[in-house]
């Protein structure tokens, strides 16, 4: 936690933490409190007066089929993104672990999507799958699939999942490679001497040993899918068609800034906050446990 | 020309007191070794003199000036740490010059001082290297160089040799001692190694549980330990301690009897202490016998671990190197009756 030895000066440490603390107070704690407070308020249509309504906003959300379906949609979206990007990344990492030459080159190329802004990633995939022009649309048409994510809600969902997963592959790949790299070579060699082939080794040794990383990545990917995919959805579908790709974060933005339902939006923020807190706690539990290994 | 005086020096962390009032007066140019088992407070004491630990009670004076509240840099000290504490991102030169720079010495003087000390320690050729490119012994010398270059009134060493291998340690021991004598700087040196302590010290301070168990020259402490702890701590292998009862005629050790030296006046149940090297290898006198349980050959001498009836511990006896004693053999146990020590069973203080 801290050094065994430390300085004893009276004011300096306060000066040092001050910038961080002030910014935290002004732009984090205070707005979070505001969100909490507003979630208990009901404003009239003109924003002139407001009434303290306790948990009405939450009850309303609970009764709102729209919100519930957005919740389920977000869960589906998150697990799909996590599953797809982690699966692909694991596959690449397992292969990259096998090759000696060129690993660096593959890594350099695979790293690129990490640096691409979500909204740009969305734009690229939108262009590929543009219903009239897109090159992928053209290929799909050749094999008899009619692609139009502007009308077909499951295609829309598929496209945002694809774009979101694409961006996250780099991150997962790097972690899987690092995890595989940290497995002692002697362990793999011992298994090879015991006659286990590459596929068998992967299943019985490598995969179990990287399971802490896998779990860590699962949490990180879910957090990513929850909060960092706003730009992708904004660019690709803007939540449509209908509400079919409106995930929770997008809905907070939509209801608050477009729909101007402050209380409802704030209540949604508060729920999101609790989700982040839960995920963060899980993540830290994991890190704690990992320390013991 | 520096003296150090510690008066009733105490240190507590919250509720636990770790240093219980230590008095030491160190004269100019003296080499004082603080020795004791781990947790005895020797490092804490050193760090209190350095100013790295606050002083709970009592006084530290350097040159008759109380330094309790002074920052380390204002005490005129220099310290060599166990892990050397060299700045890894600086070259050897920069490491040595850093303190001088902070003293705002002129550039030429810094260069000159570092150069001199580097020559003295034969590290001139490393001046532009980083610590990570040096061997353990070289790093050790750089750490010393950094201390010397400050021209301190007092050197403080905190187990500086414990990270070196055995051979290098013996070498450096001599080098440090010679260097200190030539420079004439008053020195406090912490170690847990009693051989190091004996060979280097002008005077030893044997610490136990935050108390100075004894202060004296190495030979004083060896010949005349004040209590059982000091007697057992100094000397290798350690002194044998045997429970015995002294009556008017004999010393009774578990039913076996030894003549009582006439000048031993104590009577009753005490602890007898005999150093392994204080046994006589003759069968002349009526003696206790024991069976050799284990033999340790170190070349110049042989240590016999002997099992005697009614005595729990094995008794260690030193013989000359080519002794042909075998395991299982019966050997006489003939202590030199002029070299017996007696300790009180309860207070562990020396009785005779």
């Amino acid at each position, binding site marked *: 936690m801290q050094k065994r030895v430390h300085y004893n000066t009276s004011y300096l440490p306060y000066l040092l933490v001050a910038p961080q603390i002030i910014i935290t107070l002004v732009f984090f704690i205070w707005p979070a409190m*505001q969100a909490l407070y507003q979630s208990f308020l009901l404003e009239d249509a003109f924003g002139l007066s407001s009434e303290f309504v306790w948990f009405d906003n939450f009850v309303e959300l609970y009764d709102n089929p729209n919100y519930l379906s957005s919740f389920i949609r977000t869960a589906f979206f998150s697990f799909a993104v996590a599953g797809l990007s982690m699966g692909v990344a694991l596959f690449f990492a397992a292969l990259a672990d096998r*090759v000696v030459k060129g690993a660096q080159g593959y890594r350099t190329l695979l*790293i690129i999507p990490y640096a691409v802004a979500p909204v740009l990633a969305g734009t690229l*995939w939108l262009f590929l799958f543009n219903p009239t022009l897109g090159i992928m649309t053209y290929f799909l048409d050749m094999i008899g699939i009619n692609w139009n994510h502007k009308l077909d809600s499951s295609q829309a969902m598929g496209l945002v999942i694809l774009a979101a997963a694409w961006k996250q592959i780099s991150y997962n790949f790097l972690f899987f490679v690092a995890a595989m790299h940290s497995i002692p070579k002697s362990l793999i060699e011992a298994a090879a001497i015991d006659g286990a082939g590459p596929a068998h080794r992967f299943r019985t040794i490598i995969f179990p040993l990287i399971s802490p990383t896998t779990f860590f990545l699962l949490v990180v990917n879910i957090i990513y899918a929850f909060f960092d995919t706003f730009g992708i959805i904004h660019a690709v579908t803007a939540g449509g068609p209908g509400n079919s790709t409106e995930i929770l974060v997008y809905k907070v933005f939509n209801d608050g800034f477009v729909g101007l339902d402050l209380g409802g939006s704030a209540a949604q923020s508060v729920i999101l906050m609790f989700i*982040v807190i839960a995920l963060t706690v899980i993540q830290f539990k994991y890190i704690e446990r990992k320390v013991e290994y | 020309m520096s003296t150090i005086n510690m008066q009733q020096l105490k240190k507590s962390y919250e509720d636990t007191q770790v240093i219980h009032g230590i008095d030491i007066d160190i004269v100019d140019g003296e080499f004082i070794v603080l020795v004791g088992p781990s947790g005895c407070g020797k490092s804490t004491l050193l760090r209190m003199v350095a100013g790295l630990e606050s002083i709970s009670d009592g006084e530290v004076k350097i040159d008759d000036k109380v330094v309790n509240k002074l920052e380390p840099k204002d005490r005129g000290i220099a310290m060599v740490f166990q892990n050397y504490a060299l*700045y890894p991102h600086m070259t050897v030169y920069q490491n040595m010059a850093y303190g001088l720079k902070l003293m705002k010495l002129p550039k030429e003087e810094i260069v000159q001082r570092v150069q001199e000390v580097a020559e003295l320690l034969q590290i001139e050729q490393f001046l532009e290297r980083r610590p990570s490119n040096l061997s353990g012994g070289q790093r050790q010398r750089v750490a010393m160089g950094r201390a010397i270059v400050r021209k301190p009134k007092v050197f403080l060493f905190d187990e500086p040799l414990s990270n070196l291998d055995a051979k290098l340690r013996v070498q450096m021991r001599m080098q440090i001692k010679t260097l200190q004598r030539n420079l004439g700087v008053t020195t406090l040196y912490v170690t847990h190694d009693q051989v190091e302590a004996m060979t280097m010290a002008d005077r030893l301070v044997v610490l136990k549980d935050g108390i100075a168990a004894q202060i004296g020259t190495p030979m004083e402490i060896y010949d005349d330990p004040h209590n059982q702890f000091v007697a057992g701590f100094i000397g290798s292998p350690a002194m044998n301690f045997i429970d015995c009862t002294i009556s008017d005629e004999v010393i009774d050790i578990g039913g076996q009897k030894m003549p009582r030296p006439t000048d031993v006046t104590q009577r009753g149940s005490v602890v007898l202490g005999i150093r392994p090297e204080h046994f006589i290898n003759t069968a002349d006198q009526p003696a206790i016998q024991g069976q050799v349980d284990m033999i340790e050959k170190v070349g110049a001498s042989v240590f016999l671990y002997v099992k005697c009836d009614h005595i729990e511990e094995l008794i260690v006896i030193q013989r000359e190197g080519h002794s042909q004693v075998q395991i299982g053999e019966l050997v006489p146990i003939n202590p030199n009756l002029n070299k017996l020590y007696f300790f009180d069973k309860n207070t562990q203080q020396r009785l005779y």
Partner: protein
Amino acid sequence: MVENRPMTTFISHSVLIIGVALIVFPIWIMLVASSHDALRLTQVPLPLLPGDQFWENIKLLFSSKTFGAPIHLSLLNSLAMAMMISLGKISISVISAFAIVYFKFRFRMFFFWMIFVTLMLPVEVRILPTYEVVASLGMLDSYLGLSVPLIASATATFMFRQTFLTISDELMEASRIDGASPMRFFFDVVIPMSRTNIAALFVILFIYGWNQYLWPLLITTDPDMYTVVMSIKQMLESGESEPMWHMIMLTALFAMLPPVLVVVFMQKIFVKGLTDSEK
């Protein structure tokens, strides 16, 4: 490699090459599209190979104002925002971590937990009230408004704390004996010893800052304050007509170039920093 099987190695390479090609495909198509003229990009099927209009398009992009804000201005805005966020985050985190690790003071743990809490409050979650705070401070449409609310970071503080804990205690003591004040020690020893971490963090944070989208979208209304990442979206919504894809893709190229270059060229440091700090 444990055993030598040329065949599996060959297959591994082949699969990797195909896989990497698929991953890079969207970016390739972006490059291709940015090198054709508007007309070619209305004809199905779209080209798979680069055309010869790249320089023409660049000239057009930099000379024209019809695509939202002038591109050089929005690039500059993005750079300013990314630098302010990354350097700001690093500075305030490194000093607060220094205080928490190296000093004993009242409320130390309280401050620590307060910083920890920010980890649980991503900007997306408290977007509306944060917007109100920034608005009431008059920081809309300014670099400060773009960057300052994003620069408090528990992650960076934790990372620096972790790094500092690995610096041996004796160095701090040695520096005290050498006569260095806490701040001297900070600048002369702690910072130089953490420079790899600072560099790695810079890469991560530069990308984070450059790629901000939702926040600048809310904070800026003045086109002169738009960031390049934002302007893409403006171009997509170019009214009734089909978007100008060659210009969009060219802008996208410029928008992703700085972070991609940073990550590719500082790859080693970045990978180490990323996987060491675990987010």
